[in-house]
């Protein structure tokens, strides 16, 4: 039979007692059943046990900032950053600062973009890069886009350099790596609201704070990819370097870094994408450009023009993504001997030529320099009408009203009340049980312990509302994403467009989803969940497709030769083998949901996100950090359980 093709070896773990997980779970269930008779102490952490963490953090921050004078250091750093930001701002949109030669005409930038596109990936990428520039200009957002890019042009290289250095350090010293890994994990799960306040206080509101927040957000994958790449350098290449008599520095510079090129460039790609993901969020702390404009437009309900900005951001993101990916796979090509210098550097010369040529042209032809307002082709109000028309459609309205009624009354509110009703201890034990089942005592302590800390901060109920929203959304996302993913994986014609939709949905600024969500469902949990679902479905689909696609062909052939039908093949071979990969998608969906649920505070929630939003008004750094940590800890707890499971499962299945 087909399932004999799946070897299921049990992975042995030292000191693992299988009964413990069940025992923990049983206690959890008992506590839940006995809830009405339990003393209050067992249901929620009593007030006297809740320590004033907020005050401690606040004190610690004040101590760092004022007593240790950290603020002088950070302000000095922001002065340096500001100098760079001013220079890029001058070049890209003509801010009156050194070197006072900008702005560079849009046609010159567009031409260079197209030439780079051609160099990296031929005509298709030339068209994408040039076309995006033309679109941005025609739609009348050139200046805004350049304001955004002027910050990213500083933030991305800074994140690259810092990430690369930290990655090298982590690779050199395992002790440093041991500190670095959990720090990065926390950084990646910390809600963005928690970045904002420290960024403003320590680095000055405006582009500098935006730049710093972007850098911090974009560093983690760079560090991880650098370390990974350096570890993967083939030992013989290393030995060849050593035998050539390289010093340590020569080894790093000439052997390790070039040999880890692919991973490092993947890191660069991630840095760029994450920087773009922060465009809108950092607008809250002074990041100029597209994000700030988007927020202003949304506040006066100009959906059409917000949508256009969203499209611009997506186009820029896709362009930079494709360009950097093309760079990753691009391998150097040799020239025939005797090729003259100008032929070897043909593209460079064409680029420089066009750049200078167009700058000169722009001195005489206004359109080549910049498009003024009125020359653009924005269709903002038309799109507005279309969106409003679609939403006002009676069928849509009836459907959404019905959905709202049913979902809220019969599903969401009962689910939420149930989560809130459960004793804290019960939930903590459940997680510990899951932790024990996947990774033994250590995982049980981590998974349960993280939630226990949340309980001890006194924000349990708020935290549970966050968890409830996350899980409702992820469950719905699974109902949508898994079938679509399976369908797409089985049929190549489907998978291409679906992956494109995934890419687009992921880069489309999340804010833009919020408004249609509210217009469809009103300010309530359903809108929140709807907004999360859009985001969380993407990784589920993507990893399902990837998991099923990567099942080794021999196994499929073996199943076919065993006479498996299509559905037998799917259920007995493909899905079991794809499960560890799908779990990664599930994990990402949860991480995205935790990210999005905090953003959904802008719709209106009653969870940790709302409290976090409140702290921004009062500059309560301590409370802000405590709440942020609660979100991060919960996310990390789930992350640990799922990733641990996926790893063990992979080993058991013997798939890489």
């Amino acid at each position: 039979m087909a399932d004999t093709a799946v070897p299921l070896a049990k992975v042995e773990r030292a000191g693992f007692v299988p009964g413990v997980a069940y025992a923990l779970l049983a206690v959890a269930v008992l506590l839940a059943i006995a809830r009405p008779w339990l003393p209050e102490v067992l249901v929620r952490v009593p007030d006297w046990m809740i320590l004033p963490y907020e005050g401690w953090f606040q004190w610690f921050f004040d101590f760092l900032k004022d007593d240790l004078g950290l603020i002088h250091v950070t302000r000095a750093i922001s002065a340096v950053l500001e100098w760079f930001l001013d220079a890029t701002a001058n070049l890209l949109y003509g801010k009156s600062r050194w070197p006072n030669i900008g702005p560079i005409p849009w046609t010159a930038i567009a031409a260079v973009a197209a030439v780079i596109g051609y160099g990296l990936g031929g005509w298709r990428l030339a068209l994408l890069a040039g076309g995006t520039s033309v679109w941005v200009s025609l739609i009348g957002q050139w200046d805004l886009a350049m304001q955004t890019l002027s910050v990213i042009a500083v933030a991305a290289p800074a994140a690259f350099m810092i990430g690369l250095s930290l990655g090298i350090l982590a690779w050199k010293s395992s002790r440093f790596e041991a500190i670095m890994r959990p720090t990065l994990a926390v950084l990646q799960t910390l809600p963005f609201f928690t970045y904002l306040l420290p960024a403003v206080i320590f680095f000055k509101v405006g582009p500098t704070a935006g730049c710093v927040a972007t850098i911090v957000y974009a560093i983690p994958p760079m560090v991880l990819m650098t370390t990974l790449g350096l570890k993967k350098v083939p030992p013989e290449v290393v030995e060849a370097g050593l035998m050539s008599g390289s010093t340590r520095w020569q080894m790093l510079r000439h052997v390790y870094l070039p040999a880890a090129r692919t991973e490092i460039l993947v890191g660069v790609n991630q840095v760029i994408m994450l920087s773009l993901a922060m465009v809108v969020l950092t607008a809250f702390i002074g990041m100029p450009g597209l994000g700030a404009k988007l927020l202003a437009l949304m506040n006066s309900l100009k959906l059409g023009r917000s949508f256009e900005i969203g499209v611009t951001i997506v186009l820029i993101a896709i362009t930079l993504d494709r360009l950097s990916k093309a760079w990753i796979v691009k391998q150097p090509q040799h020239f025939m001997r005797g090729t003259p210098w100008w032929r070897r550097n043909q593209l460079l010369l064409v680029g420089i030529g066009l750049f200078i040529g167009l700058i000169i042209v722009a001195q005489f032809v206004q359109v080549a320099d910049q498009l003024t307002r009125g020359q653009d082709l924005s269709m903002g109000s038309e799109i507005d009408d279309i969106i409003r028309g679609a939403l006002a459609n009676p069928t849509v309205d009836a459907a959404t009203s019905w959905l709202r009624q049913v979902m809220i009354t019969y599903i969401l509110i009962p689910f939420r009340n149930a989560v809130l009703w459960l004793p804290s201890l019960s939930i903590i034990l459940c997680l510990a049980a899951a932790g024990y089942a996947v990774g033994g005592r250590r995982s049980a302590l981590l998974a349960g312990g993280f939630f226990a800390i949340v309980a001890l901060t006194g924000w349990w109920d708020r935290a549970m509302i966050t968890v409830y929203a996350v899980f409702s959304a992820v469950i719905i996302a699974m109902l949508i994403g898994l079938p679509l993913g399976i369908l797409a994986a089985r049929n190549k014609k489907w998978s291409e467009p679906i992956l494109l939709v995934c890419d687009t949905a992921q880069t489309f600024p999340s804010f833009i989803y919020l408004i249609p969500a509210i217009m469809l469902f009103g300010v309530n949990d359903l809108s929140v969940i709807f907004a999360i679902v859009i985001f969380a479905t993407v990784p589920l689909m993507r990893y399902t497709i990837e998991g099923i696609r990567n099942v080794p062909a021999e196994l499929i052939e073996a199943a076919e030769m065993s006479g498996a039908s299509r559905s037998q093949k799917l259920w007995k071979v493909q899905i079991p083998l794809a499960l560890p990969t799908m779990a990664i998608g599930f994990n990402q969906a949860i991480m995205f949901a935790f990210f999005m649920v905090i953003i959904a505070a802008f719709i209106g929630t009653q969870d940790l996100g709302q409290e976090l939003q409140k702290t921004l008004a009062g500059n309560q750094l301590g409370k802000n950090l405590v709440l942020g940590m609660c979100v991060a800890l919960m996310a990390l707890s789930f992350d640990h359980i799922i990733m641990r499971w996926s790893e063990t499962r992979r080993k058991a299945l013997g798939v890489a």
Partner: protein
Amino acid sequence: MTTLRTFTAAALLASSATFAFAEDSTDPITIPIHNWSSQIVMSHVVGKILEAQGNSVEFVTTDSQAVYESVRLGDVTMELEVWEGAFGASFRAAMEQGGIEDVATHNAVTREDWWYPMWTKEACPGLPDWNALNACAALFATPETGTKGRFLGGPVDWLKHDAEKVEALGLNFQVVNAGSAAAIWAELAAAEKTKTPIVVFNWTPNFAEAVWPGEFVNFPEWVEGCDTDPAVGPIPDKTYDCGNPANGYLKIAAWDGMKDKWPAAYATLQQVNFTNAQIAEMAKFVDIDEMEAEDAAQAWLDANEAVWKPWIE
């Protein structure tokens, strides 16, 4: 000889000028802009006036609450719209910490309170009297509030006391906080399609008045102390048993180093004063006429020279 004479004259002139007016610093004055149109346009209007005086001006986009911390630190130089209701708390907190000062108060008054669009009145004719709300509570009910009416409040970081008001006045309502102004507008736009009755948090001056005509609910009139002293107001044992002030202030705040660094600009800023009508006009240029903020500011300046010329003399 002539050169010498002109030189002396210039030196004299220069010294007398410093005597009268310390020279403004050449560093740029930083004006924060937020995410609502009137504030953006007003910032550009003032920016252009200061530029005309020879200052260099820069704009920076910031959060409207966090900005007071930045003014205090001198990272931004001024804040042109300090709403009593929305930002009074942050402003006062910053004043207590020092570094920020209250430069001027606009003639414009601000009001923030429960508000409804006109179609609501058709369904619940007893409005704007607040007592009518209880009678019509069922009209405002939604799945998530059950039988109670729903009031869509502003974001929690605006620090309103709607829930206390509901409690004090015994309203059969539940407060649901929207997460952003945009969320309120989206709800209004959605309600407009089906003319669903709705009560939301709103304020004036605001572009929404032009898009959706409506009225504020008449709560018992605000009396000083109504929010702190239970005895004040119609319900003897409750606080917040009143509406918000119908004429809240709209102030201009500045970094307290401004008057030394840019004395001339500071002097101008003390003169700046807008009325409700002027602010509404600025917002209209952007929100209705779809102009860019900078163009709107220029248009306003061109049309209202009589208003602003005296400020710089």
